[in-house]
């Protein structure tokens, strides 16, 4: 079998089984709708009354909706690594690593499944936004673009999570680090306020935070009149490159999970 073909068929085999597990437990996915509702309905409503946030010609709720979708993608993906620790404690990882499966395919397959989780989040946020009468772009190009960005963003953060799992290796340490990382990633981004409002040091952090590029792409694609700081091409390129680098790192670290 040709190596590239092998990589993708085996990645899909891993992704398929992850999806089967996911679909058996839809409550877990749906429960993740609660948090974005709270952010939009409470935080969003209150902040809509604040004048003078430089967000262009859109309402604050519109401005923040793509940010909340990105947040939801981040929060769902960032704990993905816990499943790998579980598989390690059992011995499933041992079985997979002893099979002739490229290490990258084990990682890539999980990222595909995480992308699917992200899509479910996107559908949920679209429904919430529609219910709240936030004006969304509904042209097919825009919707496809949003979905693509969400899949890519989920892949980036789930693979990041896998890397952390490979480093810390235990459930307790992973939960600790996960909590410590999510909030800074979220607040050091343009999810709920524009970059222009940030002090310089925070701007620097935000500019190396992949979440910023995900939010920027979503803001252009998701809402009527949404404006981004970078071009779509730039946002997708950054996310794509970060993902590929993460897959390489995770594939290198994956075998250290056993032992």
């Amino acid at each position, binding site marked *: 079998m040709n190596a590239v073909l*092998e990589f993708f068929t085996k990645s899909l085999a891993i992704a398929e089984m992850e999806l089967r597990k996911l679909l058996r437990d839809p409550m877990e996915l749906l429960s993740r709708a609660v948090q974005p509702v709270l952010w939009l309905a409470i935080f969003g409503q209150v902040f809509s009354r604040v004048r003078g946030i430089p967000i262009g010609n859109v309402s604050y709720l519109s401005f923040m909706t793509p940010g909340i979708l990105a947040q939801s993608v981040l929060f769902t993906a960032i704990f993905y690594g816990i499943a790998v620790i579980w598989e390690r404690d059992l011995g499933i990882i*041992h079985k997979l690593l002893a099979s*002739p499966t490229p290490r990258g395919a084990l990682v890539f397959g999980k990222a595909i499944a995480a992308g699917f989780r992200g899509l479910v989040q996107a559908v949920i946020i679209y429904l919430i936004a529609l219910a709240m009468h936030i004006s969304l772009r509904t042209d097919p190009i825009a919707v496809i673009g949003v979905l693509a960005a969400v899949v890519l963003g989920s892949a980036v953060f789930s693979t990041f999570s896998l890397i952390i799992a490979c480093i810390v290796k235990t459930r307790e340490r992973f939960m600790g680090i996960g909590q410590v990382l999510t909030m800074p990633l979220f607040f050091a981004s343009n999810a709920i306020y524009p970059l222009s409002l940030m002090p310089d040091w925070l701007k620097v952090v935000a500019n190396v935070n992949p979440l910023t590029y995900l939010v920027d792409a979503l803001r252009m694609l998701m809402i009527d009149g949404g404006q981004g700081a970078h071009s779509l091409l730039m946002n997708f390129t950054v996310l794509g490159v970060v993902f590929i680098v993460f897959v390489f790192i995770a594939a290198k670290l994956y075998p250290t999970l056993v032992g």
Partner: protein
Amino acid sequence: MAAVTVQHGAHELAIETSHLTRRFGDFTAIDQLNLSVPYGGIFGLLGPNGAGKSTLIKMLTTLMKPSEGSARVAGFDIVQAPGEVRKRIGYVPQLLSADGALTGVENLMLSAKLYGIPGAEQKQRVDEALHYMGLSDSARQLVKRYSGGMIRRLELAQAMIHRPAILFLDEPTIGLDPVACQSVWDRLKALNKEHGMTILMTSHFMDEVDELCDTVAILHQGRLAASDTPEQLKDAVGDEATMTDVFAYFSGGNLDREGSYRDVGQTRMTAKRLG
């Protein structure tokens, strides 16, 4: 399972290690080990908790790199050509390796795909493996509802679906009741006799060793303390010696000092999850 006879060169060894060594920090878990396992038999690897059995298996199955020395498995070097080794072996770890959130069929389909069995053959191979392991009736149940014996048989089915030359089994019957043990033993004998799979297994269970193994090696503190047929070893230890006597004799008799909290934890964890 009609034509599952494994092909290999008659002159070759299934496993050959040369000064194989694995350290964890200052601690040497496997120490300059030279071991030869010919094709065709069931080879038992014994030794007290912490002797290094699982560490050795992890190296031979390419999960862990040696600190020193080398090994060939199924004709390929474990460090130079791990991919070739992986294609030719099956492995059931000491821990629990079947996915409880998937059904038996799904677990097997995943193995079939990862071992590169062509799409058109996958279903047939999966059905055969299920039938062979006596799991056809529970194929579509979630594995978390399986009994310990069924899980072990499913793991065996996963490990043999690609018809490997060598099977590595780390404590295959730990935590199983006597009936479940017997059903696993019967399958292992059949895989060895009828399909020519070479089996290397670890065990703490001397009845199992007597029942299955035609050659035995005893590891003690990472070194080979003895290696021979069970009969020869028993004769060497004394008149009417049992496998337990052999084990005690070659592992220094001081079993209480061996092992560690971690080993006990791991063993119990497996037993609990399977039970």
